[in-house]
């Protein structure tokens, strides 16, 4: 396949609190977008609590470099990228340019996590890295998995994104936090933003919830995802959409992915 998007797009997924299923949703969306025939990258900017690599069953021993190495000037950003096409999409010829999926992990070493927290880093360098990734890996889409809450890498991700996906659970604490994220995103003039409501228990009125949340934040709700026992059982050990492609959750994720691919 030789299709290319004119301008590569950056998508940030964010949730104000932990446990919303943000990494899971990001990984699934990235896989689904790649599957549609695109070159896709996922960067784990959750330096304090990295985790998205687990969904791709990546071992720390498979990391050549990490985002941390790049921020400390030890490598170029693309050197930290791991090609996960085979394990996440499968059945793709080794030489074919598309689809392709890359993961740029953050370090899992306690000392390196501590160092970033202690010393901080140049947030401008992170921006340079994101743009270098788009260019050097010739990506069509780059997904940024951010740390929950508000910190520098989160804000930078929002500032450079074409689309911000806010993940919330039907929970008052999530709602309050999301108001903060929405306000910051508007200040940072993110061009497009939508909300995905995740882990919605059976029996809750999805349409009413969609309307309520949409009105609360004056932001579109793109999907209401059901709380799924299969997802819980997967225990972040796999990409859900790969294992249960016909599950209603997978179908709902697919509609979001289709929308992203049309950006």
């Amino acid at each position, binding site marked *: 396949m030789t299709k290319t998007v004119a*301008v*590569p*797009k*950056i998508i940030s997924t964010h949730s104000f609190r932990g446990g919303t299923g943000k990494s899971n949703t990001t990984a699934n969306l990235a896989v689904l977008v790649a599957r549609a025939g695109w070159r896709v990258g996922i960067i784990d900017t959750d330096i304090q609590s990295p985790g998205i690599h687990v969904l791709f069953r990546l071992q720390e021993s498979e990391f050549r470099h990490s985002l941390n190495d790049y921020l400390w000037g030890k490598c170029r950003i693309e050197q930290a990228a791991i090609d996960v096409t085979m394990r996440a999409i499968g059945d793709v010829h080794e030489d074919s340019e598309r689809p392709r999926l890359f993961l740029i992990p953050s370090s899992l070493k306690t000392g390196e996590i501590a160092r970033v927290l202690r010393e901080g880093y140049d*947030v*401008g360098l*992170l*921006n*340079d890295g994101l*743009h270098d990734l*788009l260019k050097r890996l010739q990506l069509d889409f780059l997904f940024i998995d951010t740390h929950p809450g508000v910190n*520098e890498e989160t*804000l*930078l991700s*929002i*500032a*450079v*994104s*074409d689309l911000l996906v806010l993940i919330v659970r039907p929970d008052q604490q999530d709602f309050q936090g999301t108001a903060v994220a929405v306000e*910051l995103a508007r*200040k*940072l*003039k993110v*061009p497009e933003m939508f909300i995905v409501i995740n882990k919605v228990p059976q029996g809750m009125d999805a349409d009413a919830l969609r309307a309520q949340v949409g009105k609360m934040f004056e932001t579109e709700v793109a999907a209401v995802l059901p709380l799924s026992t299969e997802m819980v059982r997967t225990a972040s050990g796999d990409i859900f959409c790969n294992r249960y492609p016909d599950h209603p959750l997978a179908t709902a994720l697919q509609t979001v992915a289709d929308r992203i691919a049309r950006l």
Partner: protein
Amino acid sequence: MPPTLDEVELLIGKMKTAAAPLRDVLRELHARYAPVDEGRVADYIPELAKADRRWFGIAIATPDGQVFEVGDSKQLFTIQSISKPFVYGLALEDCGLEHVLSKVGVEPSGEAFNAIVLDEASNRPFNPMVNAGAIATADLVKGKDYPERVARLLELFRKYCGRDVYIDNSVFMSERLTGHRNRAIGHLMRNFGMVGEKLDETLEIYFQQCSVLVNCRDLALMGATLANGGVQPLTGIRAIPQPYVKHLLSIMLSCGMYDYAGEWAYRVGIPSKSGVGGGIVGVIPGQFGIGVFSPPLDAKGNSVRGVLACRELSERFGLHCFESGFTGTTMRDLLTPVRG
């Protein structure tokens, strides 16, 4: 305690800066000129010769406090002649325009910066950017005694940089030990009554002002202060009365780049001042302060990489002060984050 609105705005500003495409342009500029290995590092005093010829930093600051930096932008170096316009501003504030004009002219000299020559008719040094003029200017800095005059000098640079500044003592000692030519210039002016009886003290002040340690980011902020009508963008503190800013900039445009000043005004058209430490400060009124630092100097005494970087910025973004009808992308356009 929840952050105040100001803190949120500051954080948002920082992110916009980090995400602005201008960063990419500066990186590209840096990558293009970093390999240029021409010029000589100043070595008239041993301390200056210690500079690494590979050092190269570029910084740009805006009047609203955005700062863009690439390369060795935090490397300290001595300000040298870049101090001259800023101290001239202090003299204007202390003594007023007419008195200062009676002591120091504003004509480009065509002579070397360290020439021992005064205007024959008026006995004034030609302008405040040549050593003679800078010494006469330093003589005008007020204070009840030497320590107070030095303290005011440091306070001046503190206001422009928005941080504490220090003097490199070994450079200062070397400057005063080897400053025979500057002493000669001083005594010639003393002979004509163009400097007062505290000449020795004034020479010390002059050597001190040349030895102030700054980095490229400081230069950009000093430039942005002048671009902002005299108010430091980050602190909001006024460093110079607004009416004097235009006089500083005029002199920087006509005399700021040693013997290259004429061609600089012609080609680049950015009021600028360079120093033998390798720094150049440039001012785009109302828009930007530019700081460039790289120690190797060309035959005229200006930073080789600094001149190249400023020339490209000026041509590419229409920054020449007499530019009009420019239709290309401007540096201002590059302040807004682009997506993807």
